[in-house]
């Protein structure tokens, strides 16, 4: 997309002068202008961050190029990790795997823990939002539990499950569930009385009310919670994996540190950032799709 935008710009710039002066066919100038406008808009969004990235890269290169610098410059990072970049799929057994396998292992843990948190979180949030007594009973407990840092749960989880895998999943679950519960509850509490009246007149039963009114009405809030939740779970998995070991991008970073492969750490951080960004966009996009037209008018 970016490539296209950059390519089309000079073309339209060249084509513009004759169109403006002659304007014989009425159809062409419109499409040219539209392309030019689109290209301009895309360029306006893509070029500034590119320039900043380039500048930062140059700065980094200059700072780390000197002899005795503790961190590698980008050129060295590239040279060191070329193999990892171009062959993410190799698998030599044990922990010696391509980055794709590490990231996919981490994503699997997140998928398990996060899905569980989404289901349980929405259910609990609905309960707390709907029932005053459930709120009085549960809300103070949630408020205390949600302040516990994710990694503080890990020793307890390890003691309970006696295995790294379920413990990591539990940490994801316990980290991402709180914003989902709290946002769902707020969404349910904010359902307009009018919708409840409509449901009462039509005589929807509680199950129908949940699916046909509560979920769609609270969906914007629920997706806010889900989006915060996915961000937190990606934060937590990296830290948890550093401690539990095994295949996973978190332990890959820790392993690289132990063997003093700084370039690998930098590459892994880059990937972690990209994946986190994609996850966030994914949930945001899903939310947009599902809540299309839900906003009260």
């Amino acid at each position, binding site marked *: 997309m970016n490539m296209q935008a950059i390519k089309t710009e000079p073309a339209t710039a060249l084509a513009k002068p004759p169109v403006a002066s002659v304007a014989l066919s009425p159809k062409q100038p419109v499409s040219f202008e539209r392309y030019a406008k689109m290209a301009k808009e895309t360029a306006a969004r893509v070029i500034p961050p590119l320039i900043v990235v380039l500048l930062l890269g140059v700065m980094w290169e200059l700072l780390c190029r000197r002899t005795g610098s503790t961190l590698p410059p980008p050129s060295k990072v590239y040279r060191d990790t070329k193999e990892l970049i171009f062959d993410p799929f190799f698998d030599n057994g044990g922990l010696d795997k391509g980055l794709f396998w590490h990231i996919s292992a981490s994503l699997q843990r997140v998928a398990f823990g996060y899905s569980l948190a989404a289901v349980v979180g929405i259910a609990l949030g609905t309960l707390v939002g709907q029932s005053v007594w459930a709120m009085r009973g549960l809300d103070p407990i949630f408020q205390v539990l949600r302040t516990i840092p994710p990694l503080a749960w890990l020793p307890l989880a390890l003691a309970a499950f006696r295995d790294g895998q379920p413990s990591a999943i539990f940490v994801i679950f316990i980290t991402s569930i709180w914003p989902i519960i709290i946002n769902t509850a707020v969404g349910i509490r904010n359902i307009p009385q009018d919708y409840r009246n409509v449901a009462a007149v039509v005589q929807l039963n509680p199950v*129908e009310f949940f699916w046909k009114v509560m979920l769609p009405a609270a969906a914007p809030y629920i997706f806010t919670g889900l989006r915060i939740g996915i961000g937190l779970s990606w934060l937590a998995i990296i830290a948890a994996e550093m401690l539990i070991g095994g295949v996973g991008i978190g332990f890959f970073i820790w392993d690289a540190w132990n063997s003093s492969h700084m370039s690998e750490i930098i590459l892994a951080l880059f990937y972690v950032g990209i994946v986190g960004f994609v996850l966030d966009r994914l949930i945001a996009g899903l939310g947009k799709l599902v809540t299309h037209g839900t906003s009260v008018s």
Partner: protein
Amino acid sequence: MTPYLKLDHVDKVFTRGKVSSEVLKDINLNLGKGDYVSIIGHSGCGKSTMLNIIAGLTRATIGGVILEGREVNSPGPDRAVVFQNHSLLPWLTVYQNVRLGVDKVFAKTKSRAERDEWTMHNLNLVQMTHAKDKRPSEISGGMKQRVGIARALAMEPKVLLLDEPFGALDALTRAHLQDSVMALHQKLGNTIVMITHDVDEAVLLSDRIVMMTNGPSATIGEVLDVPLARPRQRLELASNPVYLDCRKRVLEFLYERHKFVEAA
């Protein structure tokens, strides 16, 4: 003759903590089948509370509502409501909004195809078939209210309750919709209770006008019969002496005998 809908000595007291306020006191009202009754009064006189009690959304503190000889105290499709702010579900299309009620009310008595047909029939009654796949946010205020009316009508209610149905509309749209409601009443013969604060609207549409005294402890001050033949024509009525007399009597009630006391 026993009345079709009867409000029997209805009192409503709202209690919050130790403070209780009596909103309605000793409301007695009888409606025959096919009657069009308007309830008019200054704001805060409890007319919406009264409608909610008939709808079953609020329970009377004392007394009750009897519909066709049976007491009703919970909401149901036999007393469908058209809400002031239309209350369409924004994530459903126009068609789905009407279909929601149809599916519940006729779940056992109509097949899928019949329910679809019935939904379209009711959208057609309010001339909204052209927008059936639009969402509420994509249609105008008047259209939303038409869909609200279709949704209520589609439940085949014994009593249709209109809660200031035209209050949020501009004057031209309002007149247009009033004519539509009159035509529907003429065609279907529904029993209708309408809340309004518009004197012209009340006289134009109703068989009887129930005038409420000011709250707290509001009650029915007077009931005025509107002996105008149907169908009624807005333009002809403008100079009709019976119409003008009815209008004058409602105005006298509202602005002389029961003048609104500011922030009482």
